[in-house]
């Protein structure tokens, strides 16, 4: 029989140690914890914050361990109940400037963490939480950009003394300009080609009008800018919500995935995430303002007749540096706003020359509604469509030139003021979004799923082990050890890759158990066959392993191909399943072939004149 080199034993031993160590962190159950960090990202958690937290918790005589981490203060508790109590205590006592989030803090011992051993991440279906998939309405972003460009064009045409008779943005997002005379048209055309590069050139024109269509490159740029800005804004908003380990990621061309573990109030989360509310500051239109440059808006609280505001925007919500909700001297909700430098000077310039006139604050919100359209076959299909709502929240006389700080009143309720403050702080979305998918898993279902998954895994493993021990005896021991080793290794690899374990992922592990045994069944059947042919036991073992190898190889490679395709095409449950299946196939090749071979050689390899083997 082929001698089994020492290095192979050492390799197996090494891999075994590695597997055990790196899968070990998964045995330590995490602590329910609360983490507290400062709202502003420039301020990192310090002992001051830790002491304050400690004081608040000690007052209530609750058992908790307070640790100061790099970015936050962590309060470890011993039960989910205490976790919620502590969160409530802290959030009532420290309202402003901190974010309080529920978390599951790993209890991995330090020596394991030092060598980079961490537990697997649990998917939302196992720990509870919300998964949102949002589609960004980039068409609106493009239209908004054209609106801005048109405003700019009007100003510059005025400066250049190019007189146009009509201008506007069409529904296909092209700008049209009408002129009274072909010479002016030509002048305008030259001016646009010299100063604007974002359009398709040459411009589409007829005798009296121009049409400006954005180039494909520009459209792509606007779309990707819009998604980037939405990502940033969403990250800010998620931070404001107080979630530990959130995921905010782009998916495909126009979609964003948001995963919030541990969040239970999805309505609140959705409200904050999807809101496109922002502010715009406009001067009130005067009697002499032409109709084409003013628009009438209703009041948000429904009181008073609609008022006309100038179309030109002084500044928008994107120039708000900070915003805090508070109450005015009469106890009515208000928002204190601080503008950034540029916003401050714009505001100053606009209000300086208009003292005595009125400044309007517009509340702008993108909403979506469902409309029914007919498709090609004439069937009614529901389509989500977004529309814009603009309402005046305040229209107040400018008494003095405004600077960087001022306040906004006229809000309905404290919840509206705090929501507005949050949205202004987190920034506006560049384009509205619709929720195209939502999956919420309650904490109780998550716990049940873990339990069910682990139970079925243990039972499945036991059934298979009993069967192969009974059927293959000594060789069955080898196969059983290999199977167990395979699960350990699989968990270790998952932990190192910090892959996420989901319920279908557990199903993948269970299935791997059933299928990994196949390699051993192939080998052992072959050995039995060789024995039946009358070969010597040791020769039969050799022949069994050698002949079965290529079959196992082919069979596993093809399954791996399927798993990899699942991984690249699948989403959600499919992906979770594919990850464990692919890793399981690779690790099982090692354990089922090398692992069992080493074991069999240890037992039978040194015996000369072996007459019978137990298979």
């Amino acid at each position, binding site marked *: 029989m082929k001698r089994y080199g020492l290095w192979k034993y050492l390799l197996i031993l090494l891999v075994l140690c590695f597997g055990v160590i790196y899968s070990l962190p998964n045995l330590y159950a995490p602590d329910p914890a609360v983490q507290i960090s400062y709202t502003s990202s420039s301020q990192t958690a310090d002992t001051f914050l830790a002491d304050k937290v400690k004081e608040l918790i000690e007052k209530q005589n609750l058992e908790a361990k307070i640790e100061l981490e790099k970015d936050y203060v962590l309060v470890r508790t011993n039960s989910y109940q205490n976790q919620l109590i502590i969160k409530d205590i802290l959030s009532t006592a420290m309202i402003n400037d901190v974010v309080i989030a529920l978390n599951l803090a790993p209890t991995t011992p330090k020596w394991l963490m030092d060598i980079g051993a961490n537990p697997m991440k649990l998917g939302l279906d196992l720990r509870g939480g919300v998964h949102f998939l949002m589609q960004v309405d980039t068409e609106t972003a493009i239209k908004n950009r054209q609106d801005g460009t048109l405003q700019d064009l009007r100003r510059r045409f005025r400066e250049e003394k190019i007189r146009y008779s009509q201008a506007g943005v069409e529904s296909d997002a092209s700008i049209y300009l009408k002129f009274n005379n072909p010479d002016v048209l030509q002048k305008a055309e030259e001016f646009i080609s010299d100063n604007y590069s974002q359009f398709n050139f040459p411009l589409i024109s007829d005798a009296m009008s121009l049409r400006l269509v954005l180039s494909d490159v520009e459209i792509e740029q606007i779309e990707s800018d819009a998604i980037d800005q939405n990502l940033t804004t969403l990250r800010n908003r998620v931070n404001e919500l107080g979630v530990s380990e959130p995921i905010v990621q782009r998916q495909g061309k126009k979609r964003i995935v948001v995963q919030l573990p541990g969040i239970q109030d999805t309505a609140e989360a959705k409200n904050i995430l999807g809101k496109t509310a922002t502010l715009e500051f406009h001067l009130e239109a005067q009697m002499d303002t032409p109709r084409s440059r003013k628009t009438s808006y209703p009041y948000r609280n429904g009181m008073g007749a609609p008022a006309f505001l100038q179309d030109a925007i002084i500044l928008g919500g994107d120039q708000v540096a900070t915003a805090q909700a508070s109450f005015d001297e009469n106890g009515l909700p208000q928002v204190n706003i601080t503008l950034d430098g540029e916003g401050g000077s714009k505001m100053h310039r606009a209000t300086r020359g208009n003292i005595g006139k009125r400044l309007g604050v517009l509340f702008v919100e993108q909403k979506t509604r469902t409309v029914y359209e007919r498709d090609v076959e004439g069937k009614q299909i529901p389509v989500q469509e977004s529309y814009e709502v603009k309402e005046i929240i305040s229209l107040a006389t400018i008494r003095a030139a405004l600077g960087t700080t001022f306040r906004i009143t006229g809000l309905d309720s404290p919840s509206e003021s705090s929501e507005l403050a949050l949205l202004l702080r987190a920034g506006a979305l560049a384009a509205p979004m*619709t929720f*195209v998918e939502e999956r919420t898993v309650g904490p109780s279902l998550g716990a049940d799923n873990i339990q069910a998954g682990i139970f079925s895994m243990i039972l499945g493993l036991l059934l298979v082990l009993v069967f192969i021990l009974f059927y293959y005896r000594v060789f069955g021991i080898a196969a059983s050890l290999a199977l167990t080793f395979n699960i350990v290794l699989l968990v270790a690899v998952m932990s190192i890759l910090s892959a996420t374990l989901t319920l279908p992922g557990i199903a993948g592990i269970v299935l791997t158990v059933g299928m990994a045994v196949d390699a051993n069944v192939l080998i052992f059947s072959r050995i039995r066959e060789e024995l039946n042919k009358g070969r010597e036991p040791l020769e039969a073992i050799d022949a069994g*392993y050698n002949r079965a190898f290529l079959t196992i190889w082919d069979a596993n490679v093809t399954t791996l191909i399927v798993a990899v395709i699942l991984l690249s*095409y699948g989403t959600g449950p499919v992906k979770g*399943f594919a990850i464990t299946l692919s890793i399981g196939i690779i690790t099982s090749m090692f354990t089922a*072939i090398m692992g069992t071979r080493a074991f069999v050689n240890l037992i039978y390899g040194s015996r000369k004149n072996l007459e019978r083997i137990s298979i």
Partner: protein
Amino acid sequence: MTFNIDFLAWRRIALIFSSVFLILSIGSWLFKDLNYGLDFTGGTLVELSYPDSANISEIRQTLVLGGFEGAQVANFGSSKEVLIKLPGTVSDSLGSEIVSLLSSSSLDQEIDLRRIEYVGPQIGSELRDDGGTAMLIALAFMMLYIAFRFQSMFAGAAVIALIHDVIVVIGIFSLIQIEFDLTVLAALLAVIGYSLNDTIVVSDRIRENLRSMESDSTHEIINTSLNQTLGRTLITSLTTLLVLFSLYFLGGELIKNFALALIFGVIVGTYSSIYIAANALIMMGLNKDHLKVEEPENADENLLP
């Protein structure tokens, strides 16, 4: 285990059997369609847990009064769990509305929210398309790999067997109207992997025997190969079925249909690797001459254990 069964004597009967089953499956698929789950139809789903047995008809009535006429209400797993489905709806807020409606109508009972799912209409059709694409790509890659490692006839036979398996499992799901969702789709792809595993093992033995056996009868060689691999095929199917039944009974409601699809798949896959793949090889006229080309087996020698 050693067997000496004349499998191929049954091959015509198996052919008729398979054809009938395929026609039945396709027919059911076309006329009854699949009972698509939320992942593919789009809509809203809410799972709630009541402290005591939930009163389904009362819940249904509350929902109708609250304006949710099309809601399907049923127990899920146990009498305490309730699943409410609104297929085809396009508003993402219905789930929370249902939860608050039911919570406020049963003040004496604390309702636990287990899950809410909302899938928009465009996602549903996308998931369906992606699933179909993934399956076709998987089949194409399988064919290429087998053609490269074995020979094109084996590739053809394996793919015929795989298509047979997928259609039959889909047919079973359509016939008994079990819900077909994303996890079932994943299971279907796993069936492809599993069934292929089986087919490859058998093909591998056929190839080996075509080279080593003295007999010139392909029929006899294939029959011997099937008998030699039968023991292994049965044991592997058995161990896989053991874990699948454990998943089916203990893995929870969300995994049940996944396990079921695989259970059907393993059974059908085992059958197809014996009767469909081997049968196809004979019908394609495989004989010793087809394997005269040197195989690149030596290239793998350094991978031997």
